[in-house]
């Protein structure tokens, strides 16, 4: 009797333990089962750590289809928004580390250099368009961009047309707004007539909650800093370039930032609790006429419940801030997403990974996914002008890219020294918006932070 009891206890304990560990086992099961048919497809495996949560589902479909077609096992894991570096750090320490991952430019490369294989000899690298920036030293290529993105001021043309039709409007069409002065004139007049226009403010709220401030401390700052980098002769492939800045065009940054704060749907002091989602929702619901964001924001606008903005009513304006030569200024177009192949993975896995990427960006099936469902503006010669993405903002980016006589601003923020620099910048902007920090002090802290954080890069 006693023995039976003990046996029963043991059995129960084991069941419990099995239950506790079954989570881990299950995971292994699923990944090995999807590779069970791989006998025919060589020995390499692909593991991609995806950066963009909004397209996770598409990647899973692509992985499945590729496995069915070739028998090569493809695993795609997506990092939750804002946690890519964390995920990558822990995944890379594992035995089954990602074979394809991404770094966000030279600064990201500085910490992942040991893992980035030279892929200059690959077929895909040969398909890169002329003049596309890569991660590398001129000869070797360690990372290739997979999508080009653009940002500016997203405008609701339906509201603008309503304004242009008003008596005494400061402009009669969007084309007339080709510089900061005109933009300011129009915006301030619109703000004064917001009741007539049926909006709460011209600009969506300036989201300055920590973690939600990248539109200002990264994107807006980029436009103001890019000409300074040019003057400094900064090398955009080197993380340590531009060890010091003077924030020469800070006054221009302030021009536009003040315009956002003063002509917003909310009191500038309340910006500290607003998120990017809040801003995009205000735009989608027609409560404001403009919002600064990029082409990726379209899915967000379209996805808001009760969205009143028609697809044909959305377009871009450049971020005019009174910079010299702004009559030719275009959107900020570039990329911070560089795909790298893990140099520490086995040779078979590296080859399988390159084959997978090559299939995705050159084959007809792969390209259909890229332009249709991933919505990428891929910088490869296998994509023509007709392959532009379907959404209006993506199309606008391609259009600006090909417009004559326009100087689009490059994405130079890939050489910003660290996330800490950006976070500090963002919180300084918040304190400026709340009125507890003067603009001069803000410039001082940005310049000082840049120097210390740059010096920290190994």
């Amino acid at each position, binding site marked *: 009797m006693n023995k039976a009891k003990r046996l029963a206890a043991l059995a129960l304990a084991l069941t419990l333990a099995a239950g506790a560990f079954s989570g881990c086992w299950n995971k292994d099961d699923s990944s090995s089962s999807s590779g069970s048919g791989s006998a025919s497809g060589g020995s390499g495996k692909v593991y991609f750590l995806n950066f963009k949560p909004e397209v996770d589902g598409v990647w899973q479909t692509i992985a499945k289809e590729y496995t069915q077609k070739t028998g090569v096992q493809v695993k795609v894991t997506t990092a939750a928004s804002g946690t890519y570096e964390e995920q990558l*750090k822990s995944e890379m320490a594992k035995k089954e580390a990602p074979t394809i991952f991404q770094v966000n430019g030279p600064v990201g490369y500085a910490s992942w250099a040991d893992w980035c294989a030279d892929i200059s000899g690959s077929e895909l690298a040969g398909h890169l368009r002329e003049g596309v920036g890569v991660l590398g030293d001129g000869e070797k290529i360690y990372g290739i961009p997979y999508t080009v993105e653009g940002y500016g001021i997203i405008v609701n043309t339906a509201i603008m047309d309503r304004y242009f039709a008003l008596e005494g409007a400061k402009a009669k069409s969007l084309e007339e707004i080709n510089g900061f002065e005109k933009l300011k004139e129009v915006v301030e007049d619109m703000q004064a007539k917001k009741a007539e226009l049926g909006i709460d403010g011209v600009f969506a709220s300036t989201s300055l909650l920590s973690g939600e401030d990248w539109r200002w401390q990264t994107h807006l700052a980029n436009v103001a800093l890019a000409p300074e980098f040019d003057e400094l002769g900064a090398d955009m492939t080197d993380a340590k370039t531009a060890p010091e800045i003077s924030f020469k065009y800070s006054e221009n940054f302030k021009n536009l930032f003040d315009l956002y704060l003063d002509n917003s749907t909310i009191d500038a002091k309340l910006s500290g609790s607003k998120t990017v989602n809040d801003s995009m929702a205000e735009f989608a619901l027609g409560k404001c006429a403009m919002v600064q964001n990029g082409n990726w924001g379209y899915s967000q606008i379209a996805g808001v419940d009760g969205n009143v903005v028609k697809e044909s009513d959305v377009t871009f304006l450049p971020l005019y801030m009174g910079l010299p030569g702004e009559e030719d200024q275009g959107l900020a177009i570039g990329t911070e997403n560089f795909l790298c192949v893990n140099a520490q993975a086995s040779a078979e896995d590296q080859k399988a990974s390159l084959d997978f990427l090559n299939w995705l960006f050159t084959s007809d099936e792969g390209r259909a996914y890229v332009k249709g469902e991933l919505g990428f503006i891929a910088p490869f010669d296998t994509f023509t002008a007709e392959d532009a993405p379907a959404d209006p903002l993506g199309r606008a980016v391609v259009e600006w890219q090909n417009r004559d006589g326009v100087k689009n601003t490059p994405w130079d923020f890939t050489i910003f020294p660290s996330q800490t620099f950006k976070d500090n910048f963002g919180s300084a902007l918040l304190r400026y918006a709340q009125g507890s920090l003067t603009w001069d002090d803000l410039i001082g802290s940005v310049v000082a932070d840049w120097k210390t954080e740059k010096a920290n890069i190994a």
Partner: protein
Amino acid sequence: MQKTLKKARWFTIFVVPTLLAFLASFLAPFLMGIYLSFCKFTTVTNARWVGVDNYLRVFTDPGGDFVRALSFTALFTVVSVVTVNLFAFALALLLTRGLRGTNLFRTVFFMPNLIGGIVLGYIWQIIINGVLLGFGVDITFDAKYGFWGLVVLMNWQLIGYMMIIYVAGLQNVPPELIEAAEIDGASGWQTLIHVTLPNVMPSVTICTFLTLTNSFKLFDQNLALTGGAPGKQTAMLALDIYNTFYKRTGWEGVGQAKAVLFFLMVGAIAFIQLRLTRSKEVEN
């Protein structure tokens, strides 16, 4: 002999699995963490030995983040240990008086403890901002809003749990002692201080230990409620370690060094506190 064998068998069944799990998921990473604090690394597998460099950088960092986080954490810990224990003890006294609905109240007060820290953080952020917006500010305006916000949140979450411990302690105070005190003409206050309190000292020990370490180690609530805003002024130690490790290029080792220092501090404080309160406990 028979008995030791039997013991060995039960030991294998009940302790060994836990022991293995403890070794694998606690002790091994812990030792590795100490080793890594002397290294420069990106992932835990490519560490390169750099000696005490990381520890020096903790204190020479021009931002002074660690020291600021330490003083903020210390202040927060003192305030919340005092408030949590006072309120919890007062509630426990109230709910051991045989009032109507005692059980209902105990449950209600205990419930916030069942909600996760992140969720509580966001809920309180909405509540506090809702109030502050009435005055045209929000929680990111001033470090003092964040500080008191955290104190309120911590109280909300921990009072119920501590209250239950105090209730158990109070129920174990021998009624004859209280009766004797009453017969001797002691006032209610005198009874409380000289009879009840010495008898619940074991509960006080446990509760101060729990509030002290929990306040010192606070992370989720801090991350969700203020995220360190304004600037990094309300970032506590755990959040600062996290930010150092993940948000700066080349600072992983420094974050690790901060974590080791953090461990030493928590350990030392907890040890001293246990020593002090234990000495006040009475045998009955």
